[in-house]
């Protein structure tokens, strides 16, 4: 099978599934539409959180597959030092990034005269921190388990783990985000 057909056949199914699950995320966004278009800062911060979590997910997937291809990890030892070290790095970088993000978002809200005060700022920060921490843990576990599974079937983990990571970043991020918004912004 030539490379073009191989990429299409290995990627199509997972892309259709992840896009459909993205639609599910979209339906959840519709459920908080009123809050999103009233407290516009929530709409502003959501792609940023998505991006951050997605970026961390692609780093986890890409680094994991590189370690796998180079033979530095094996499925015989899932709690490998290298994997734990990677998780600690990702979590630390994620938490620092989310605080930087919330700070910039707060500044932008003042400049843009959007509806923002300290009470709203702390709620948005709490939503962002909890969402990021939960998602990074979930993504790490999924990438490691799915990565070993796919690799043992002689398929390229790059074709699966990246779309799975972006799917989780979008759907589960929105789910946790929507839950936190419903919890902290009661209309």
């Amino acid at each position, binding site marked *: 099978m*030539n490379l073009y057909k191989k990429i299409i056949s290995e990627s*199509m199914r997972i892309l*259709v599934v992840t896009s459909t699950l993205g639609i599910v995320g979209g339906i959840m966004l519709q459920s908080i539409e009123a809050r999103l278009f009233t407290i516009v800062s929530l709409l502003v911060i959501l792609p940023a959180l998505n991006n951050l979590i997605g970026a961390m997910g692609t*780093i986890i997937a890409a680094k994991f597959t590189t370690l796998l291809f180079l033979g530095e990890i094996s499925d015989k030892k899932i709690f490998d030092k290298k994997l734990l070290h990677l998780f600690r790095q990702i979590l630390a970088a994620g938490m620092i990034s989310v605080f930087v993000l919330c700070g910039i978002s707060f500044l*932008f809200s003042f400049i843009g005269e959007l509806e923002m005060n300290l009470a709203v700022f702390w709620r948005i920060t709490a939503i962002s921190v909890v969402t990021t921490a939960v998602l990074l843990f979930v993504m790490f576990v999924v990438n490691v388990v799915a990565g070993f599974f796919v690799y043992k079937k002689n398929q390229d983990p790059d074709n699966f783990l990246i779309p799975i990571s972006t799917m989780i970043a*979008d759907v589960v991020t929105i789910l946790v985000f929507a839950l936190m918004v419903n919890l902290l912004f009661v209309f």
Partner: protein
Amino acid sequence: MKDFNQILFSGVIASVGGLLAGIFLGIYADRLELIPGILVLLPGFLDMRGGIGASFSARIGSALHIGSLKPKIKKQPILNSNLLAAVSLTLIVSAFLGIVSFAVTYFIFGKFFIEIIFIPILAGIISTLMLLPITTLLSFNVFRRGLDPDDIVGPTTTTIGDVISVVALLVAIIVIV
């Protein structure tokens, strides 16, 4: 430490880049509120764009590491196959997203808005034409400088991809609606 700094840099850039995309959404929130189904379409479209773009950059990165792809702009079967596959996937999945968004908006939310089918297709074409050359050139450049494309190119193209995707969606909405 160098590895952590690269990861942190990517995380901060991704956050700030996503914030830029969010700012565009915030500025045009009034216009977006008038498009039935746009919130249904948005995550799936960003998901598709991120999945295709990041897979493309990861495959290029792996090929560069293994040595089967040279970091040069010249005819290389591996590069050509990857580019063609990324374009094909974008067109097919965008059309699928448009149809499903239309169906969801109509059957679940009771709003008939046929234009939602064409918005992601046009936005997909615009974003692909911009993103694939950027991703390819960035991968080659990063690799030639001795940096790890896995740390930098994937997150960077996800970031740029989201901003370009939101802009492409807004352009598609202005053109079609």
